[in-house]
């Protein structure tokens, strides 16, 4: 116990009453406000233990009487967002893509919603804004491999390309080189012809004949393509796997084929419709 409390003549303060080898210490208590804040914090901490999740237990943690969790809060917020969108979602579900695109109000909302969903789901392959990349078609131009109408775009997004979905777009180009359907010389002639075709020029007689026999069935007499088979147009400068002669020789010899998931299996119907309207708006569709 402190017994020898003295008043320090210099500071006017009292000492603690303890003495260590002649050293005395001034008694400088914590400010009262600090002490009260400390008490208040202590009480608050006890309150938090009771009300909020606080202590780890062998099989988890104490939940607190409020059962609060950030995950639960998120679920509540998401439910609220879903609820607030309900009106729009039901309208999208009830309308066809054409009806959505024709209604300025629905279109505006669909394009805004589609933009967000596109960035999340489509942009990794097709590029933001549908800019496209090697092997991934550009969605902002006017060539549509599987058709550019709203209904076509919607069908492609919903069921995808060359996947296991029964309604998926299917269409395969023959392996003219690998399977020996054409000789390397013939493939070269065909490639020359297609290069000329893409520039709007006339090919030589051998190429013309080859094309008419082997290619025109799918790609069209004048290379205009056929959306039903997914055969791209060849009479323009737009290429999925580049349009130089060497690229074409490779493609004719052993064709590459891209695929795309059936988004109806992953996203809800209203979202797929919004995506279709958005993608159609990127380049104005066809």
């Amino acid at each position, binding site marked *: 116990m402190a017994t020898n409390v003295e008043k320090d003549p210099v500071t006017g303060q009292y000492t603690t009453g303890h003495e260590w080898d002649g050293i005395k210490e001034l008694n400088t208590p914590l400010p009262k406000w600090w002490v009260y804040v400390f008490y208040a914090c202590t009480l608050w901490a006890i309150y938090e233990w009771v009300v909020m999740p606080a202590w780890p237990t062998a099989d988890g943690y104490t939940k607190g009487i409020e059962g609060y969790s950030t995950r639960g809060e998120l679920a509540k917020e998401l439910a609220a967002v879903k609820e607030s969108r309900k009106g729009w979602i039901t309208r999208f579900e009830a309308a066809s893509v054409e009806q959505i695109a024709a209604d300025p109000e629905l279109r505006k909302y669909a394009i805004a919603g589609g933009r967000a969903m596109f960035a999340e789901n489509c942009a990794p392959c097709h*590029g*933001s804004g549908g*800019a496209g990349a090697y092997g991934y078609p550009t969605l902002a131009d006017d060539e549509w491999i599987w058709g550019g109408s709203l209904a076509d775009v919607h069908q492609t997004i919903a069921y995808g390309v060359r996947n296991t979905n029964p309604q998926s777009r299917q269409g395969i180009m023959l392996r003219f080189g690998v399977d020996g359907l054409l000789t390397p010389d013939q493939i070269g002639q065909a490639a020359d012809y297609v290069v000329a075709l893409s520039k709007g020029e006339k090919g030589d007689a051998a190429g013309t004949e080859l094309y008419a026999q082997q290619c025109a069935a799918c790609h069209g007499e004048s290379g205009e393509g056929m959306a039903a088979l997914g055969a791209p147009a060849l009479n*323009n400068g*737009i290429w999925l796997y580049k349009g130089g002669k060497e690229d074409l020789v490779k493609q004719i010899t052993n064709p590459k084929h891209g695929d795309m998931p059936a988004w109806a299996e992953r996203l809800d119907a209203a979202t797929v419709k919004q995506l279709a309207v958005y993608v159609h*708006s990127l380049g104005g569709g066809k």
Partner: protein
Amino acid sequence: MNSDPACGGKRKQALYEYKKVYPRKVYGTFRKLKWAAVVVLLAIWHLAPFLRWDRGPGAPDQAILIDMAGRRAYLYNIEIWPQEVYYLTGLLILAAIGLFFVTALLGRVWCGFACWQTVYTDLFVWIEELFEGDRNERMKRDGQPTSVGKLLRKAGKNVVWAAVSLLTGLAFALYFQDAYQGVRDVFTGQASKATYGFMVLFGGFCWLLAGYAREQVCIYMCPWPRFQAAMFDEDSLVVSYEGWRGEPRGHYKKGHDFAERGHCVDCRLCVHVCPTGIDIRNGSQLACIGCALCVDACNSVMDRFGLPRGLISYDSVDNMAARSKGLPPRIRLIRGRTIGYVAIMGLVGSIMLYTLLNRSTTEVNVLHERSPLYVTLSDGSIRNGYVFKVLNMVRETRSFELKLAGVEGATFSAIGLPTEQDGTRIVLPVAPDAVADFQVFVTARRDALAGKRTDLQFLLTDLETGKTIVHKTMFAGPEQ
């Protein structure tokens, strides 16, 4: 130990020492002026949101309204859009220079008469007097131990203070919503959390600053007293004590002849009435807010002793010097610095007025699509996408004609709108008081382009007025 060099052997003076100020009631000219300022300023603050101004159907009819959700500010017939917030800068410059001007001319009239802190402190002290009496009574009661009567008086005072504070906060919130509806909502419990929140926040600070912090706000918190002296010169009006007349001071005893002693009777009334608790006889000082209540107090004492008024006066340094020598007073309002301040105010005011009168009612923003920068179409032509935004700042639907220039043979289309004249004209409808955005695709032949960048102009013509806005942008293409 006593010669410890670190503390100079003695205790240092504290940076902050609080001594409660008990301002005493006072009557006189400046007190009346101050009350007038309190009434007028509070009336403006509380009543201005209730003023109406007809803007036509669909628009708010509140004369002064800041609509945060709608992103508009309304001031009578002026409607400010978010991008025009620089008018606020202009207003702040005007206010600052106005403050400098008034300070150069009249000293700290802002501090003494018009500042929030002064107005609300006056009001709160008045309420305090209602419950706890004048200075002496308050000091006496504060020195007594706690009793029921004391607690009741303090509680009553705080209840009224809190009510005034909450009303002050409410008035603030009313500038951001319909005032009539807002008041109804607040008293029926329907108001938004933001409204209640601001009432408590704003009101809480009002209660704290005017009720308890008072003069400490002026002395320790406010930056203005620290540099306002820079606006002063010898012609500025300041509250001063005429030492040459007052000294040597001393209590008046019967038989004293004022011709042989100073006129100051050392009654300390000037100290007692001071809201910041200073002694003006020590000279002009930072803590003096220039409210001139000590002038009123001293004049009443001078009258009692039959001495001339103005021992403490609201006067310029030059004027007082002149009086001390028996010269006629001189008042110089037109001086280099006042002319300068007026000139700056005039300049800023004219610029604001000019821009306000000539501001356009339409604005165009064009965003060039960056991904993809351009696309090659199947016929070899190049297409660029643009987001075209038209701001219609008028409260009626307008139609604009959009055309292109700069790229030969360019055509365009817009999502959801028909094109006319072979794709060279689109009519854009824009709703009243709104921003309309359109997705526009411009297509040009490759040989019409100058390379990676070609200058392109959008010509937007108001179909009613025929006024055309030219917006310059660029058209991207492949390297030639």
